[in-house]
C-alpha cells in the first residue's frame, strides 16, 4: 500500500520531470579527487627525485620491495581511515596487532589448523576493537582515552600470553601467505590491494560507509536522521581491530615469528598515512584512495632514505618534517578552494 507521502511524491514527480537540468554526475565522481591528486603528485615527485638521486630506486625489484614493506602500515591505515573519518582516533592499533599476532602464533604452536588459528586471531582483534567502540559509543569515553587505555591493556595481554618472549617457527605453508606470489606479484601486495578495494567499496557505496561520513561530519544531525550512531561507531572500531589483526597475520607469516612487542608506534605511521592522504582529523571527509597514496609516500621515503644511506636518526627527523609539510600544503590548498 502506498503511504500518503509516497503518493504525493509520485504526483510531484510527474510535474517536476523535465525541469531538472542540473546534473549530479560530475560532482559525485570527482569528490575529493582534487585533494587526492595533490597527494599523488607528491608521490610522483618524490619518486622522480629519488630516481635522479639513486640508480637503485627505480627497479622492479625495489618497487615491489617498497610495496611489500608498505603493506603492513597500509592495512593498519585502512581501519585508521574509517576511525578518523568517523571523527575518532585509534591509538591501540599497534598493540592490537601484537596481541592478535601472538594469539595466532600460540594457536598455531598448539596445533590448531591454520584457518582456525587465523579466525581466533581475527576474532580477538575485532573483539578488542569492538570493546574500544563500546567504551566510546556507550560509555561516552573520548576515543583518545579509550584507545590509549586499550593500547596498554592489549600490550599487557600480549606480554602475558607469551611471557614476553617471541613465538616463532611455523609451517612453510603458513609462511607462504606472506612469501608467496600470485601471478608473479608478492602476495602481501595482492592482499593489500584486495583489502583496499573491498574497504573502499564499503566506505563509498554502502549505507554503513555513508553513515561513517555522516557521524564524522555531524553526529547529532546523523542521529536525528534515524541512524543508530552508537552501533555504527562501535563497528568502526571493530573494523580497525580487524585490520590490525590482518596486518598481524602478514607480519607473523613474513617474519616467521610473532613478537609481543611488535607494532610499537604503528598508530603514528597509520595516522600519518591517513592525514597525508587528505583525511581530515576533524572527521567527515577523506578516502582510502588518499590513504594508500599516503602510506606509499611514507614507504617510498623510508626506502629512499635507506638507499641514500641516511642515518636512521636523520630519517626520523626527515619523515616528521615531511608529515608536517604535507598536511600544511593540504590545508593551504583546501583554503584556496574555499
Amino acid at each position, binding site marked *: 500500500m502506498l503511504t500518503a*507521502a509516497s503518493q504525493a511524491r509520485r504526483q510531484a514527480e510527474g510535474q517536476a520531470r523535465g525541469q531538472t537540468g542540473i546534473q549530479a554526475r560530475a560532482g559525485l565522481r570527482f569528490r575529493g579527487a582534487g585533494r587526492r591528486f595533490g597527494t599523488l603528485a607528491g608521490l610522483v615527485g618524490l619518486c622522480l627525485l629519488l630516481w635522479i638521486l639513486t640508480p637503485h630506486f627505480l627497479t622492479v625489484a625495489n618497487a615491489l620491495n617498497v610495496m611489500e614493506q608498505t603493506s603492513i602500515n597500509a592495512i593498519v591505515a585502512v581501519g585508521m581511515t574509517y576511525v578518523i573519518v568517523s571523527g575518532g582516533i585509534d591509538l591501540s592499533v599497534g598493540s592490537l596487532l601484537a596481541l592478535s599476532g601472538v594469539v595466532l602464533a600460540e594457536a598455531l604452536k598448539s596445533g590448531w589448523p591454520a584457518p582456525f588459528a587465523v579466525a581466533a586471531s581475527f576474532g580477538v582483534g575485532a573483539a578488542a576493537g569492538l570493546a574500544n567502540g563500546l567504551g566510546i559509543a556507550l560509555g561516552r569515553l573520548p576515543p583518545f582515552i579509550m584507545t590509549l587505555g586499550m593500547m596498554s591493556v592489549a600490550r599487557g595481554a600480549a606480554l602475558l600470553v607469551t611471557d614476553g618472549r617471541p613465538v616463532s617457527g611455523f609451517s612453510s605453508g603458513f609462511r607462504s601467505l606472506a612469501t608467496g606470489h600470485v601471478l608473479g606479484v608478492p602476495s602481501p601486495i595482492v592482499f593489500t590491494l584486495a583489502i583496499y578495494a573491498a574497504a573502499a567499496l564499503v566506505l563509498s557505496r554502502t549505507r554503513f560507509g555513508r553513515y561513517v561520513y555522516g557521524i564524522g561530519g555531524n553526529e547529532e544531525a546523523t542521529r536525528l536522521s534515524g541512524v543508530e550512531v552508537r552501533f555504527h561507531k562501535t563497528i568502526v572500531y571493530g573494523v580497525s581491530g580487524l585490520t590490525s589483526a590482518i596486518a598481524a597475520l602478514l607480519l607473523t607469516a613474513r617474519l616467521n615469528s610473532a613478537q609481543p612487542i611488535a607494532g610499537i608506534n604503528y598508530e603514528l605511521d597509520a595516522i600519518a598515512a591517513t592525514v597525508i592522504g587528505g583525511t581530515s582529523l576533524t572527521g567527515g571527509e577523506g578516502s582510502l584512495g588518499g590513504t594508500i597514496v599516503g602510506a606509499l609516500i611514507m614507504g617510498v621515503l623510508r626506502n629512499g632514505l635507506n638507499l641514500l644511506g641516511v642515518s636512521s636518526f636523520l630519517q626520523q627527523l626527515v619523515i616528521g618534517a615531511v608529515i608536517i609539510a604535507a598536511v600544511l600544503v593540504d590545508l593551504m590548498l583546501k583554503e584556496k578552494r574555499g
Partner: protein
Amino acid sequence: MTHPATAPVLSMRGIRKAFPGVVALDGVDFTLRAGEVHVLLGENGAGKSTLMKILSGAYRRDAGEITVDGRPVSIGSPRDAQALGIATIYQELSLVPQLTVAENILLGHEPSRAGWIDRRRLEADARQSLRDAGLDIDPQRRVDRLGIAEQQMVEVAKALFRHARVIVMDEPTSALTVREIDRLFGVIRRVTAASVAVVYISHRMRELTEIGDRVTVLRDGRNVGTFTLSDVSTGDLVRLMANRDVRDHFPRRRGAIGEELLRIDHLCGPSGGPVVNDVSLVVRRGEIVGLAGLMGAGRTELARIIIGADPPSAGNVVLDGRPVPPSSPRRAIRAGIGFLPEDRKRHGLVMTLSVCENIGLPNLARWSRGGIVSRRAERAEADRWVGELRIKTPHAGERVVRLSGGTQQKVVLARSLAADAKLFVMDEPTRGVDVGAKVEIYELMNRLTDAGAGILMISSELPEVLGMSDRIYVMRRGRIEAEFDASAASEERVLQAALGLAC
C-alpha cells in the same frame, strides 16, 4: 529618516567574486548613506551575504573598488574592516558565551592598569555603549544566560563601542519573535539617528517597509535596481528579485480532514530539565496544525520529544493508533514521522557531505538494496528536489558548506519532504528562504496533505502560521495556552495568547 542630501559614507563599485563553478557577484554597485537603513533584497544565493562578507573582510573581492568617505580603501581582513568602522552581525552570533556582556563588548580593547584589567572602567565603558544603543542589559551577566535577541543587541553595542559607522545585519530577525523584532528595530532607529548606516538583509517583506529607507535588489549576482522604499510596492520588488510572477502568498488548499493521525497525551519533558509541561494535542490526516508561541515557549522541545531526539519524562505519543517508542529518532522515523529541525547547522546538515548525500541521509533505507546505496535512485531524487525547490547549486554533488544560508535550508526541507512519512514535524521550515520559494514550499505542503499526510508546523512567523494552518495551538511556558480554528484566529488573538494576555 531619509537623508537624501547626505554623501555616501561607503560605496562599492563593480564588485566581482567567483567561487569554483559559480559567479557569486558580477559587477555589483552599492552605495550607503549615513543614517540610512539600506535593505538588501534577493533570492537565496543572489549574493547578498557574499557582498557583505567582502565588506567585512571575510572574503577578498576578485575585482572592483570600495571607497569610504570618497577615499579608496582596501579591505583584506576583518581587522581592516573594523578599523574603517564597519561591523557585521551575522546570523550565527559571534560572542564568547562564557564571558560577561561587558567583557564581550570590550573584547580585545580591555582597559588596563599596569597590565591588569581595570574592571571598573571595563564595566563603565560597556554600560555607556549599552546606553548608546538604548539597551537595558546588565553588563555583568554572562552572555550564555541571554536570549538570542539580547545577544544580538549586545552585538550592536559592541559595534557602537568600536565606533562603527556601518553596521551590517545579515538576517538578524530570522530567529526572533515579533516583540523582539520591535526591540531590535528600536535599537536600529536609535543608531541611525546618530548617523550610523545600517545594511539590513531579510526575507521577511513586511519588515522592509517598516524599517528600511532604501532598497537594493540583487539577482544572480547583479544589482537590478536601487530604490527609495516609499516609491516601490512589495509586489514590484518580489517580481524584480524573482524575475517572474509570484502567486498568492499562502496558497493553502483546505481539503477534507480525515481521522486522527497523531495524538499526544499529557506529554512532559525532556527528562533532564522539563520544559514541556503536560501538553496534549491532536493532528488529523490532511491537516496542517500550526504551533505558535514565543521563543522559549517549549515548541522546539516538544518537537524534539515527538521525534525521539529527547526522552519524555511523562506522557506518550501515539501515531495512527500505535504508540511511538520514545527517545529513538530511528524508531520515530520507522513509525512514520518525518522531521525538519530548527537549527540546520547543528541538527540538520552534515556540512562535509553533498546536497545529494544530505538529502539521502534519513532516506537511504529506501534508496539502497542489501546495504548498497543505489546512487542512481539517490541522484534522481536529489535532482528532482533541486529542480522543484530551485535549490541554487551547480549540481547535486556540491558540498552543502558552499551553499548560501537559504539554499541550505532548502536542502533540509527537501530531505524531510522526501521522507516516506505520514506525519511531518517541521520546526521553522521556511527560515531564511526567499519569498518565491516559500510559495513553492507551501504548495508542496498542500500536496502532502492532499495525499493524506498530517503536518505539525512550528513557526514564529505569524502570517505563515495563520496563512497555512487549519488549526493553531499556542504554547506558552511549556503549556498549550490556547487552540484556534483557522477561521477564528487572528494575529492579535494568537499573540495575546502567546503573551498570556488572553481572556
